[in-house]
């Protein structure tokens, strides 16, 4: 009786603590999913406007791209729910097979991939094309998080640091840069960097590998005149406004035309063949033109919410794997958005990466949504109350 009386307050505290944690986790999930949902809606609207002129001209159907994106969105939602309901430990178990499969797909791209615009990035499977490099972002981070979480505290020697990193990020980055797809390589590296940085791995090694990767990327840009032109073009947009900096200039024109409040939904001028890839890499310009600074800052704010929510989920994750995976996914998505908007606003080189949840593109959309699903799975993965009771 006495013990029961004694146990009661402890139990109540534990239960209260568990409830508090559950509430705070569901709040974090909310802060994650609400911006994602809003971004998806904004994306659909922007694609509808940005692609209607192109769709009408190419296929006779102004809704052509919009309909396809709706289909991909359905697949994405199903994937998100599935990814969220898969227990986190399953993700850990699937990490290696998924990574191997990804490497297989990337090799397949190099061998039998579809070439377009000077790059070999796509695999044609029946009526649909997929972009394995988009898949690689998630699976590489997943695999790296798995290895690092296992041997976090034994990575003090350079050998022990080098091989896991080289064996995951290194392979993927090498295969992706051969396509070539510098933008995606950069994002994989950013995600990996975050995973390593948040781990207990020695700081100098992380910085060293980052510098190494950075110089490799610079070298890759230098050897390709087309890529180098893009890099230098962003430094001086006026040098060649009809050539290498055409897109960047047109993007700024679109954003400037939008001004503070925008020209109105569906009233974009830039989509009238001024801005190439208006519905994919440059969808943010159309969005900014139609909804103005008000709209574009709102989108930025939604991404900030998403970034913070992801970081909070990582911070509160129950174990090392969850925290590393969560910060890796968050960094990947956030960096991708920053690189995209940075390119569109002329402060970063244009690397051809889509804006997550907003740009047209099936594989990217589905993979970003799976990433969000994994974040939800991490947030939901709470240790048994009994175990935590200390």
């Amino acid at each position: 009786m006495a013990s029961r009386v004694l146990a009661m307050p402890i139990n109540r505290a534990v239960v209260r603590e568990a409830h508090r944690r559950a509430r705070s986790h569901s709040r974090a999930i909310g802060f994650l999913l609400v911006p994602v949902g809003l971004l998806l809606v904004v994306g659909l609207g922007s694609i509808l406007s940005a692609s209607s002129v192109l769709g009408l001209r190419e296929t006779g159907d102004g809704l052509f791209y919009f309909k396809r994106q709706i289909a991909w969105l359905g697949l994405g939602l199903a994937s998100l729910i599935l990814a969220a309901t898969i227990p986190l430990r399953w993700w850990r178990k699937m990490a290696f097979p998924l990574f191997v499969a990804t490497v297989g797909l990337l090799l397949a791209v190099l061998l039998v991939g579809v070439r377009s615009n000077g790059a070999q990035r796509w695999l044609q499977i029946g009526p649909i094309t997929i972009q394995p490099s988009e898949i690689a972002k998630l699976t590489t981070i997943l695999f790296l998080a798995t290895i690092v979480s296992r041997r976090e505290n034994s990575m003090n020697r350079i050998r022990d640091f080098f091989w896991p990193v080289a064996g995951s990020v290194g392979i993927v980055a090498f295969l992706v840069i051969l396509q070539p797809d510098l933008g995606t390589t950069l994002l994989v590296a950013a995600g990996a960097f975050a995973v390593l940085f948040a781990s207990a791995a020695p700081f100098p090694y992380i910085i060293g590998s980052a510098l190494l990767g950075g110089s490799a990327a610079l070298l890759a840009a230098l050897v390709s005149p087309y890529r180098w032109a893009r890099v230098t073009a962003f430094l001086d947009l006026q040098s060649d406004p009809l050539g290498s900096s055409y897109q960047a200039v047109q993007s700024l024109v679109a954003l400037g035309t939008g001004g503070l409040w925008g020209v109105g939904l569906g009233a974009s001028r830039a989509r009238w063949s001024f801005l190439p890839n208006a519905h994919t890499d440059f969808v943010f310009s159309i969005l900014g033109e139609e909804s103005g600074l008000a709209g574009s800052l709102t989108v930025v704010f939604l991404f900030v919410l998403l970034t913070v929510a992801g970081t909070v989920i990582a911070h509160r994750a129950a174990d090392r794997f969850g925290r590393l995976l969560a910060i890796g996914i968050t960094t990947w998505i956030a960096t991708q958005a920053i690189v995209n908007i940075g390119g569109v606003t002329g402060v970063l080189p244009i690397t051809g990466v889509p804006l997550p949840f907003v740009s047209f593109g099936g594989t990217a959309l589905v993979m970003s949504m799976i990433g969000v699903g994994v974040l939800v799975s991490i947030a939901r993965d709470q240790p048994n109350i009994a175990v935590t009771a200390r």
Partner: protein
Amino acid sequence: MEQEAPSRRNGRLVSVGVLLVIAWTLIGYRLTVVQGARADEFAARGLEQRLQSEILAADRGTIFDRDGRELAVNVEGVTVYANPREITDPESLASLLAPWLARNPTDLAQDLASDAAFVYLARQLDPESAQPIRDAGLTGIHFLSEPRRVYPTGALAAHVVGFVSDGDNAGLEGIELFYEAELAGTPGVLLVERDPQGRVIPQGEYRVEHPEQGSDLVLTIKSEIQYSATQALAAALERTGATSGSVVVLDPESGEILAMVNLPSFDPNDRSGAPVDALRNRAVTDVFEPGSTQKLVTIAGALESGIVAPNTSFEIPPRIEILDTVFRDVTVHPDRLTVTEIVAHSSNLGTILVGDLLGIRRLYTYMYSFGQGRPSGLDFPGEAGGVLRPPEDWCITTCLAGTSIGYHVSVTPLQMAMVYAVVANDGMWVQPHLVKEIVDGEGNRQAILPLARRVISVETAAQMRIMLEAVVLRGTGSAAAVPGYRVGGKTGTTEKYLPDIQEYSKEEVVASFIGMAPIGDPQIVIAVVLDSPQEYASGGRGAAPVFAEVMLAALHHVGVIPGG
């Protein structure tokens, strides 16, 4: 250790999130710059690359004759143009279009393949011939409404009305040129945003400044008289073998030109193949030495000065020799002639005697006063002023004598008609003009008010008219008689001055007759000038019958009853 590590790691984790948020802040700042501080600069650049202005042609004014008959009108025209950027297969499109446009397929294919967003394929087709192209519904082929200038009366008043340039309908000759500002109106402007392929952006800026319609012109020309004069002149060229000719019919009281005809002429609807010579309005641009018709100025000047009276008689010598030059009379007449008879017989020697009494300075003054040696100020482009040398440049030998009888001076047919108009109009010179009224787009009518000045007195003019009647009744101009009307006028036959050899031709003459009717109160003045007639090569036999024919028609059409 186990407590230390997670917190250090948490610190690193949080710093990743913080780094990302800092990056987002920079992005937000950049957006504020692009869409806020520098928005106008980028927006202006965008507008500049999209905004295009198009000229909207104004409706050119219609040209009517004095009775409201259309002489120059606009009809609907369809201009076909291409946007080559929308065209994928120029060759096959060219071979399809070529027959419809009546163009060479190779040239057409070149146009269709050019690197522009706008290329004319054919301008101002009539709507029926453009219809099959419209029906074909071809991508990249577009249509514009561009009115075409049409002259319903063809060659009838071609020299007066003139014509416009193909395509943009700008006045090139005649009234079309002289009144270009009034006829053309003010073109409008369409400002529209277009994409790089030239398609209109529906939500873009769209401003229209509507064109202002050009004014209509009502000419002084009376088509019936113009027609009669053309017929009579054509018949005269046929009969006499003259190379060209002009007829001017005018109302001496108002200065209104009722008809102005030149042959050869041309069809302003199809100028291709018309020789350049045929395009000239000779009545206004070409000069000739007037010869005997000029005697009116000498005699009128002498009468007005009071040196002679109509019945003052002169002893006419058989000839007058000045240095190497010998003046003779070509007609047979008594040895003594009154001034009236000098005119009636067109006596060179009599006129030289009268002119000698008048003197160089006074003769010059009267010639100038009658409007010789300067353009009349007709509302017509390129009017010639003729040649009248200032008195100090006249030679002291033959010049006074020669000028008295119409040599050493050159005039246009119009100027010569105006000399007679002064006599017809009781001594008043009224500026000749071709446009009676200007009617603007709102229907406001503005009448043309001609200048007027006195040249000789009413009495002198009346005396001169009696002498001119005598020319027709008893003298050299009998062929100018018009049944039922009293007619006066003067013949002229001039040896043609050949500027190439600076000598007078022995074979070629300019035959003219200038006169008026009814002589009591003249309503009509007509000048007929024939260049180089082979048969009937004199004013009396070549030009006077034309005068008679046209005068009868003119009096009839103006409604002058026979008698006066």
